């Protein structure tokens, strides 16, 4: 079975693992970063209220926890859908970077402050 073969085994057999699992992980990270930035800015403008999970640390605990939950859910869904697929890596690369950059920008206090 290809899924249980090591990288060296798959190369020798001429079978490369599909890149879908890698793309799922990368794109999900982009979605998680973007979700965190979006939560931060929506919360800053009072459009959503995210409760604190640990009140001594304040609202950052709720915002980051929700971002992490979105990231993990996105990763699980994309992994299940793409793990046996070969996808366009260049396109996924561009999508991931765009999402990460947007997430970082949205989370900065010059926008969210």
């Amino acid at each position, binding site marked *: 079975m290809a899924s249980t073969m090591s990288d060296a085994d798959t190369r020798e057999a001429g079978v490369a693992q599909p890149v879908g699992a890698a793309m799922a992980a990368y794109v999900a990270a982009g979605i998680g970063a973007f979700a965190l*930035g979006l939560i931060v800015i929506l919360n800053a403008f009072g459009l959503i209220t995210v409760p604190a999970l640990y009140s001594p640390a304040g609202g950052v605990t709720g915002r980051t926890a929700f971002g992490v939950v979105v990231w993990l859910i996105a990763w699980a869904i994309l992994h299940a859908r793409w793990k046996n697929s070969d996808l366009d890596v260049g396109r996924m690369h561009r999508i991931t970077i765009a999402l990460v950059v947007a997430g970082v920008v949205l*989370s900065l206090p010059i926008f969210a402050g």
Partner: protein
Amino acid sequence: MDIPLFSERSIWTMIHGIGLGGGALLTSFAMLFFLVALRTDAFGEQVNYEARWFTWLAVATVILLWLAVIIGTYVTFPPYRATPPEGLTDLSAYPRALIRSDPSTAWLHSFAMEAKEHVPWIAAIVATPVAFVSVRYGSRILSDRSLRNVATTLTAVCVVLVAIATLLGTFVNKVAPLH
């Protein structure tokens, strides 16, 4: 009078900033070096050997980053943002209030600390898939150009974010250290 060299709060701050944050900066930069300097189109025992070291480095980076953000948010941030009692004039035990009391340092909270609240979490999120791909795909992280390119970009983003967070944290701690 018995004056401790380090208080519990300052020890946690050092663990967070120097041990975990500084460690993550070093290991993520080493990852970037690996991905750029050891890129190859070949495969074989040498690449497998180098990829094993890269995997250890990537996993260490992820562990350091997640510990840094969790300890930073849940252990060192609460004493930083504690509200001083009404009328207190010596704010040295209340870093946020101390920083905001002076207009020349107020930006250290309104920009630096506000950025530090979220940016390191994004760094941890983008570093994790690089470690995952390294574990799952082995030497292909170095020898497969397309997988390597995405890993290199995300690692570079991670290095920049960790460097910014570390620098801002140093500024905050310089002006208002947690004693």
